């Protein structure tokens, strides 16, 4: 059964870049910082591509952000997504507002499945997918993953981690919870957020990158979608975390043992 898949692609700071708070505490220093596709969204894009390759359908990739977010959309198109949608808005938005914008796109595109990374590695909120699911009245599976190794044969063959039933009406997914692994079945349409090890995302091929340049990338204005963009979570100030300084080296196990007992008193 072909699936229409909508997947998010957020532009975030590259974790290899040094993140520092501005002296005025109003934001982070952006000079010298590199950007990339949110790693969890990359996993979501890969899963969408695998589902389409297995079942047929279409993968629409969506980003909410400034003009430069086109880069991340083209990256997802280069991986194999069919077309892109950029909802233009400069500056951060909190997850509840993001979910309202996503809802508008969902209502227009009518996907069978919405895939998002479980969290964006800039705000680390882990909320947007769940907010969206509740707004839509849809079921959700958050932090979907799989327990098989990424070296397994199934993974080499790029099999989806999310299993679509033969009649195309339900999806089965696994997620880690405290104390074990849970298996859930949700009826489509549904929202799934993706976690590490659900899959290993593919690299875009050179032909993929060339094709991506010609794929459709539609722009919408966030302000024109009839959503209240006012922040509900207001950042008052940012600060660097308390610094943890190293204590130095010990020369051998004897010294370590002595210090752990006498100095640190943790043993």
């Amino acid at each position: 059964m072909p699936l229409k898949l909508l997947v998010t692609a957020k532009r975030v700071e590259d974790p290899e870049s040094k993140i520092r708070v501005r002296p005025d505490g109003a934001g982070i220093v952006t000079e010298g910082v590199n950007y990339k596709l949110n790693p969890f969204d990359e996993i979501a894009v890969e899963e969408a591509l695998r589902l389409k390759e297995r079942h047929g359908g279409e993968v629409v990739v969506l980003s909410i952000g400034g003009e430069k977010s086109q880069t991340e959309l083209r990256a997802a198109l280069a991986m194999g997504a069919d077309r892109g949608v950029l909802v233009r808005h400069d500056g951060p938005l909190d997850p509840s507002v993001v979910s309202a914008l996503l809802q508008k796109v969902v209502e227009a595109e009518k996907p069978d499945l919405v895939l998002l990374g479980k969290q964006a590695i800039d705000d680390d909120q882990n909320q947007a997918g769940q907010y969206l699911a509740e707004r839509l009245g849809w079921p959700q599976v958050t932090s979907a993953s799989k327990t098989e190794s990424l070296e397994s044969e199934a993974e080499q063959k790029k099999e989806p981690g999310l299993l679509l039933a033969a009649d195309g009406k339900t999806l089965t997914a696994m997620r880690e919870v405290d104390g074990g692994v849970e298996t859930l079945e949700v009826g489509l349409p549904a929202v799934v957020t993706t976690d590490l090890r659900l899959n290993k995302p593919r690299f875009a091929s050179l032909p993929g990158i060339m094709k991506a340049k010609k794929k459709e990338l539609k722009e919408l204005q966030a302000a024109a979608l009839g959503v209240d963009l006012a922040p509900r979570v207001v950042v008052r100030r940012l600060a660097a975390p308390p610094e943890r300084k190293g204590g130095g080296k010990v020369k051998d196990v004897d010294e370590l043992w002595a210090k752990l007992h006498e100095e640190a008193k943790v043993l």
Partner: protein
Amino acid sequence: MNVLIVAEHGGGTLRKASLHALAAGREIARRTGGALHAVVLGKGVGAVAEELARHGVSVHAADAPGLEHPLAAVQAPVVADLARALQATFVGAAATAQGKDLLPRVAARLDAGMASDVLGLAGEGQQIAFRRPMWAGNVLAEVEIATPVKVFTVRATEFPALAREEAGTVQPVAVTVDPAAQRTRHLGFRELKSERPDLTEARVVVAGGRGTKGDFKPVEALADALGAAVGASRAAVDAGWVPNDWQVGQTGKVVAPDLYVAAGISGAIQHLAGMKGAKVIVAVNKDPEAPIFQIADYGLVGDLFQVLPALVAKVKASR
């Protein structure tokens, strides 16, 4: 302002993380002049509700067959309705897998903003703000939730657990739930049992990384000698050497033990985000330049295959 905390349970017992969330809830209630309530959802939750009540909490027990499994879409309406009935300004839970799954749906129903993974509070009354980590803990943000209802999850390691005190109360919550209407079915749960303490609760954690080259025996031997939990870096988990739930880090488990021993772990930022709250950090690594030595209290440059067994010998000799 009233506070409602969603308390979690598993295998018939209250999850300890919820006691930490309740402590945060009590502090918020104190700073805003309100009452603290807790809700427990499930099938046959009497014992858990009683245990919670022994911590001096007003407990609301939502007990129904349809609530047997923690399905966020099924639980959210129950929690939201109760929050309204209790006129709760704050609705929170521990930032566990369940808490993260459920609370944003509750927030959506209450038209509320939400702060995840709260580490601390600032101010009081209307101006109360939450501190939370961003960019893998490289930035601490102080945020205010602008909506009338404020939803949050709490990082359990940052608040001491609520202690048992005078008796609280247990009241039933009348619920009608229909999981089928939410199009969600629980198909199964595979428990990952361990004789070792829970990673997020353990006083001592011994963790291994790439330097183990897949052989975690020295790490596990030291952990067992110390009665500790075993953790791992993302590299070790991705390589398939150890189970996923051993991962410590930004997107794995966040731990704050008294002692964290990092063996063969280089100290990537994402790993540090999960363990820099430990009281004492020991790093064992062959590479003297490994970033982990910058935050370790005691760094030992050496081969973990020699150092860890030597430590085990010391532990055994000291008994």
